[in-house]
């Protein structure tokens, strides 16, 4: 019916509200790129405990589970090993029992993902890196550590200086429970001052190397020095 295009618009239809709803929603959504995270951070403390009760399946704790391989590694306590090698006086291998026998420390720190989400006050328990690296007698000319995940091909690097920050941890417990599969069971790196992609999950090998290189995400354009608020396009 093309003829009725010429039909006069009925008088009562003159409030053009639909386009206002459309444009207003689009404008609010686009502008939220500037204020959305701040607004969410302000209200999430109120919303998330309520949401956790009514919909426990939602990621209400704030965590998202990211992985890069087809399947997440499965943890078998009997066969799991952590090895330390590269430029060391003595290559060492720890099984899960030996790892848990090392002096444990606990810390509460905030986890920031480079994609914008944040989880506050995460309770970690694990061992300091020095407890694991020290016995292998790292060479003085090894200026970096290469962290290799069982989730192939994920890996990343820290300089020796970065790795010796006081709150860098090899964590095997999170919020009072053994690390879950999605969070990198049984062992992950935690470096609270940097975005989460540096905190390698499913850690299975640490290598002492001469210099840092590009890890998995750095090869895709992310910064090697992933300082929170001062890297990856944020605050720079």
């Amino acid at each position: 019916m093309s003829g009725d295009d010429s039909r006069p618009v009925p008088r009562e239809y003159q409030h053009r509200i639909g386009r206002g709803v459309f444009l207003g929603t689009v404008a609010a959504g686009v502008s939220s790129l500037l204020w959305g995270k701040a607004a969410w951070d302000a209200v999430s403390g109120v919303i998330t405990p309520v949401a956790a009760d009514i919909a426990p399946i939602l990621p209400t704790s704030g965590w998202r589970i990211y992985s890069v391989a087809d399947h997440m590694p499965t943890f078998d306590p009997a066969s799991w090993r952590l090895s330390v090698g590269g430029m060391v006086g003595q290559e060492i291998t720890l099984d899960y029992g030996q790892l848990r026998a090392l002096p444990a420390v606990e810390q509460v720190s905030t986890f920031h993902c480079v994609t914008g989400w944040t989880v506050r006050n995460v309770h970690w328990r694990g061992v300091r890196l020095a407890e694991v690296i020290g016995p292998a007698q790292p060479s003085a000319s090894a200026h970096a550590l290469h962290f290799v995940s069982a989730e192939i091909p994920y890996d990343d690097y820290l300089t020796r200086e970065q790795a010796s920050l006081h709150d860098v941890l090899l964590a095997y417990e999170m919020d009072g429970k053994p690390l879950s599969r999605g969070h990198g069971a049984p062992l992950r790196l935690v470096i609270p001052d940097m975005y989460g992609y540096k905190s390698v999950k499913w850690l299975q090998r640490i290598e002492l190397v001469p210099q840092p290189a590009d890890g998995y995400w750095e090869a895709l354009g992310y910064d090697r020095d992933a300082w929170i608020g001062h890297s990856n396009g944020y605050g720079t």
Partner: protein
Amino acid sequence: MTAYVRRFSRTERLLHWVNAAGFLLLLVTGLVLYLPSLEVAVGRRALVKEVHFWGGIGWVCALVLVALLGDRRGLLRTARELDGFDRDDGRWLTGRSAPQGRFNAGQKVNASLTAAFTVLFLVSGLLLHFGEGDTRFRFASTVVLHDGLFFAATALFVGHLYLAVIHPATRHALRGITVGTVSSEWAERHHSKWKPE
């Protein structure tokens, strides 16, 4: 014998179902990417991400193609219907009874919001995709916007689904969007200002 009147053209129905199919594909793949329990159970994040991304591109392209290759004039006419609100629509939206046209005021609001959400899903989705490799496209709030849209669109979708398949007074409308026609008696009762041609 029941008399039927035509409510939706073939182009309108196709546009609706292409939109529905795309939304469902993105909802399912999006949930796998979003919910930790599903992410751990399904794995294959890289593959699901690809399906989600290209599904989103395909969804929007399909909508544009249907609109361009279908009855464009008819769609423009429908857009004008959805855009216009009169006094009766105002009464209807504030909970009073008022005669309605081919679309009631709630359907008009739903259409505007759905269209806006589609645009915002596309914009935030493209920013997430390209922001992964290029800091110029990276905003700390993109993921908040994309997730917020998921919640808003899902709430709208659940309400729409309830009215379309469960609520006794309105579920006859499902016939209109599938085969195109509705009973004239139902049309008179729910859309009395609409004069089917």
